[in-house]
């Protein structure tokens, strides 16, 4: 039997890149889909609003674990074998898109109608209004919650361990099984999550204070 030493610890540390890879994919993928969702939601079309509301409510109402199982097992129905990384990336992307979409939608809606109106009156096109007037203000408003949600994604990647994807939680499990020292294994895992999340949480708080101070400036 092995004892918990530096090789075991390093094994967990190396798995961190998979936690981060998954996080980056989910954040970028979910971010792109989230932007599209947020824009569709503030569009005038009633159909678009209905469709996006349905999508967001379904996803937000679904436990992430269930979504993950669906993404992992559904392809096998049509005879496809998919990698745990792919399934986890898809599930986390879909999940993030619904939440980021909601965060950004509310930021866009928080910009006073008078700002759209002034831009309209200056003959800016809707795209340029969004690009130069609305988005810069909305991004500033949404930044604290966006960074906050990024921390959520990091923690959510731990669920991928259940379908056998080796990120740090799964790595901790493996080390724990091999060494029978679950406490050391999972304390290491916890320390790594903390090391990654803590700076981001602080950043989010700082951004929030800055926004609260009211400056809309960049």
């Amino acid at each position, binding site marked *: 039997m092995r004892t918990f030493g530096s090789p075991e610890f390093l094994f967990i540390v190396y798995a961190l890149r998979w936690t981060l890879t998954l996080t980056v994919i989910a954040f970028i993928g979910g971010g792109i889909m989230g932007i599209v969702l947020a824009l569709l939601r503030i569009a005038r079309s009633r159909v678009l609003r209905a469709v996006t509301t349905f999508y967001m409510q379904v996803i937000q109402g679904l436990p992430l674990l269930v979504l993950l199982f669906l993404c992992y097992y559904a392809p096998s129905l049509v005879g496809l074998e998919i990698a745990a990384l792919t399934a986890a990336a898809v599930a986390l992307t879909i999940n993030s898109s619904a939440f980021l979409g909601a965060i950004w939608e509310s930021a866009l809606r928080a910009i006073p109608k*008078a700002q759209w109106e002034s831009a309209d*009156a*200056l*003959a800016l096109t809707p795209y*340029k209004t969004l690009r*130069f007037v609305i988005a810069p*203000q909305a991004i500033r408003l949404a930044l604290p919650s966006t960074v906050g949600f990024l921390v959520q994604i990091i923690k959510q990647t731990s669920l991928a361990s259940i379908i056998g994807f080796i990120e740090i939680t799964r790595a901790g499990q493996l080390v724990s099984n091999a060494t029978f020292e679950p406490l050391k294994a999972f304390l290491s895992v916890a320390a790594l999550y903390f090391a990654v999340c803590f700076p981001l949480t602080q950043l989010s708080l700082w951004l929030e204070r800055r926004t609260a101070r009211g400056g*809309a*400036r960049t």
Partner: protein
Amino acid sequence: MSVVVAKNIHKSFGALQVLKGVSLTVEGGEVVALIGRSGSGKSTFLRCLNGLETIDAGEIEVAGHRMSSKPAELRKLRRDVGIVFQSYNLFPHLTAGENIMLAPVQVKGLSRKAARDEAQRCLSLVGLGDRFDAYPDMLSGGQQQRVAIARSLAMQPQVLLFDEVTSALDPELTGEVLAVIESLARDGMTMLLVTHEMGFARRVANRTIFMKDGVIHEEGPSAEFFSAPKTPELQAFLRSEVG
């Protein structure tokens, strides 16, 4: 040449009929004041002139452009019509100078250099030549409103609309904004202003219009309009405004 032609404008918000057939022509270089009790439809009428409100019936032609519901056509009209709002509505994330440069660069395609010079010129015109780099929240209400005027001027509009631009200001800041408008009048700018400043309307406007219940109730050259109002309603209104 007529810069603004509005014929028989009707406008309702749901069941509320706000404009019940308003017709108005403004010639180039004219300054026209719109007065009346709150709720009489003055702002709504003004906003119809640059398409911020759609009309239910009637015809509008401004600066040679017919009012259109087509976005591209509407933008052509808006390039030539400036509007200044009661609450300034500057873009808070941009400096005074950037606020002014935005539309000339993005709408007219001016180079940044040309737009910067133009913005500087417009800021100087409103007496804020030294505040180019100030953000709106560093400026007083009166200064913000002057930047908003400069922002409209930078598009070199053929007509400027003012929607109660001093109503949100403390009395001591009202004067500086009115002085800017007065200097524009002297320079021959065509302007249509909704205002509560009777003395200003009388002094600066060539013509004053009294709106009541969604129609033009009385109008005339400002001097006579204020010294010898004809209808009892206008007489009562002017008494209440002075008293």
